[in-house]
C-alpha cells in the first residue's frame, strides 16, 4: 500500500474515468462530476509525488488546496450557467443545446 505507484495508479484511474465520463455522459451534471474526477486525479498525483519524491517543501499539498478552491469556483460558475440553460430548455441533456451549429 505504501508505495508511490499505488497512488499514481489510483490517480490515473480517476483521471481516465473522468475523461470517459465527459465523453459518455449526456447529462450536464454528470459531465460536471466527471470533470471533478479529473481534477481529483491530478490532486492525488500532486500529493503522492509530494509525499514520496519531494517531501521537504509541501508545495504539492498547497497545490492541492488551491485545486480544491478552483474546483469549487468552477463548479459554482458551471452550475449557474447550467441553471440558466435549464430554465429555457427544461432539460439538462447536452443534446438539447444545439441552437448554434454549422
Amino acid at each position, binding site marked *: 500500500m505504501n508505495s508511490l505507484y499505488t497512488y499514481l495508479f489510483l490517480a490515473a484511474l480517476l483521471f481516465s474515468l473522468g475523461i470517459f465520463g*465527459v465523453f459518455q455522459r449526456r447529462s450536464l451534471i454528470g459531465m460536471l462530476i466527471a470533470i471533478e474526477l479529473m481534477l481529483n486525479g491530478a490532486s492525488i*498525483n500532486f500529493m503522492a509525488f509530494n509525499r514520496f519524491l519531494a517531501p521537504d517543501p509541501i508545495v504539492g499539498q498547497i497545490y492541492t488546496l488551491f485545486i480544491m478552491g*478552483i474546483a469549487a469556483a*468552477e463548479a459554482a460558475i458551471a452550475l449557474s450557467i447550467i441553471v440558466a440553460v435549464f430554465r429555457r430548455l427544461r432539460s439538462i441533456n*447536452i443534446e438539447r*443545446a444545439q441552437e*448554434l451549429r454549422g
Partner: protein
Amino acid sequence: MIPENFIQSNLQGISFIGPELILTLAILLILLVGVLLPYWRHRILFTILAVAGLAGSVLPLWKLPQPAPDLTYLSNLFVWDWLTFLSKPFFAVVGVLTILLTQVTGEIDNSEYSECTILVLAVTMGMMLLVASTDLLMIYLAFETMGILSYLLVGIRARDERSGEAALKYVLYGAFTSGTMLFGFSLLFGLAGSTDLLAISQKVAFASQHPQDRLLLIVAILFFLAGLLFKTASFPFHFWCPDVYEGAPTPITAFLSVGPKAAGFVLFIRLFYPLFATGHDATIYEAVSGLDWPSILALVSAITMTLGNLAAIHQNNLKRLLAYSSIAHAGYLLMGIVSLSDLGLRSVVFYLVVYLFMNVGAFAVVAMVASAGGSEEIDSYRGLGARAPYVCVAMAIFLFSLIGLPPFAGFVGKVYLFAAVIYKKIYWLAVVAALNTVISLYYYLRIVKAMFLEKPTETIQIQVPLSSRVLLLALLVPTLGLGIYWQPLARVVSGMF
C-alpha cells in the same frame, strides 16, 4: 520563524504587481458604485471608471526597474522580463477597446453593464498575472482566473438563448481542457519535484536522456498542450470557438479573440522555451533531445490553419466566419512558435499586436452594423457600401489586413512569420501557409464584394453614431500606420528576446 530578508524581499515584490493591484481597486470601486446606484441608467460612469482603472494600471510600469530575464519576485512566482513588461500594456489596451466597444454598441443591457465591466477588468487582471508567472501553481491560478471569469462574460446576457448555450459549451470544454492541463502539470511536478519553471527546466534536460522519463515527459507535454491549444483555439481543441464566438455578445467575442488567445501564446513561449528548448546560440534554440515537439506543433499549425480557412468558406454569419478566421490565425501564429528562433518569437509578438487592432476592428464593425439596424448575416451587408460608406471602408481595410495584403499591418506581420519558418528551412509549412492565405482571400473578399459590388436590398442610410466612428478611427490608425511605419514596433519587439 520567518527570516527578516524574506519579508523584505516580498514587500519589495509587491511593487511589481502594481498593475494588478490598481485593477483590483478599480473592480472594488465599480462593485461599490454598482451597489450604491442600482438604478443608475447611464453607462458612462462605469465606462469611465473601468477605462481609468485600466489606464491607471499601466502607470506603475514606468517606475519599475529595467526588466531582466532573471529578475524574479514574490518568491520566484513571477518574472519581470521584457515579455511581461510589454504584455501588461497590451492587455490593458485589449480591455480598454472592449469596454469602449461595449459602451458604443449598447449590446449589453444597462442592468448587466456594471457586472460586464467588472468581469472584463478581472479577466484582464488574470491575463496580466498569467504572462508574468514562472511557477506552475501561479500559472494554473492565473489561467483559471482568466478562464472561469470569461465563461461568465460569454453568458452575461442571461435572457438571450444563444448566449447561454455558448457559455455552456465554453464552460464544459474549458473545464475539461484545464483539467487535462492540470494533470500534465502534476506529471511535470512529479518529474522535477518543484513547481518552479527554472528548477523544472534543469530536471527536464536531465530526464530527456533517460527513455523512461522521456515517455513521462511526452505524456506531460501532450496533456498540457490541451489547455494551451484550447485557449489559442487550435486543432484539435477548436470546436468550441465558432459556437462561443457566435453566441457571445460581439464586444466580448472581440475580447476573447485577442485577449485570452494572446495570453495563450505568451504561455506557449513561457512554457516551451525555458522547459523544452536549450542551447540559446545567439538567436537559435534547439529542442530538448528526444522530444520533437516542434514537429508536432508544426503539424498542428498546418492542420489548424487549413481547417479554419476551409470551414470559413461556407459561413454566412459574420461572427462565425470571423471565428473560423481566428482559428486560421492561431495556425499562422503557431508558425512562429515552431520556428525555435528569436525571430520566430518576435514575429509572434509582432503579429499579436497587429492582430489586436485588425481583429477587434472587424468585430467592431460587425457590432456597429448590428446595433444600427443591420444583422450579423452576410446578406444584410449587400450594398452596405452605399448606405454606410465610412464603416464599410473601415471593414474593407480590416479584412485586407487580415488577409495580409500590403500596405496594411497584417502584411508586415505575415512577412515576419513566413520569414521565421523559411529561415529555419521548414519550407513545407511556409507553402501550406501561403496556400491558406489564397484560400482566405475567397471568404474575406466575399464580404467586400457584398458590401461594394452588390445591389442594396434597402436604400435607407445607416446612421452610425460619432462615438463609434471615433473608435473605428482609433483602430484604423494602427492598422494602417503599422503597415507603413512598423520599424518602431519591430525595434521594441526585437529588444525582448
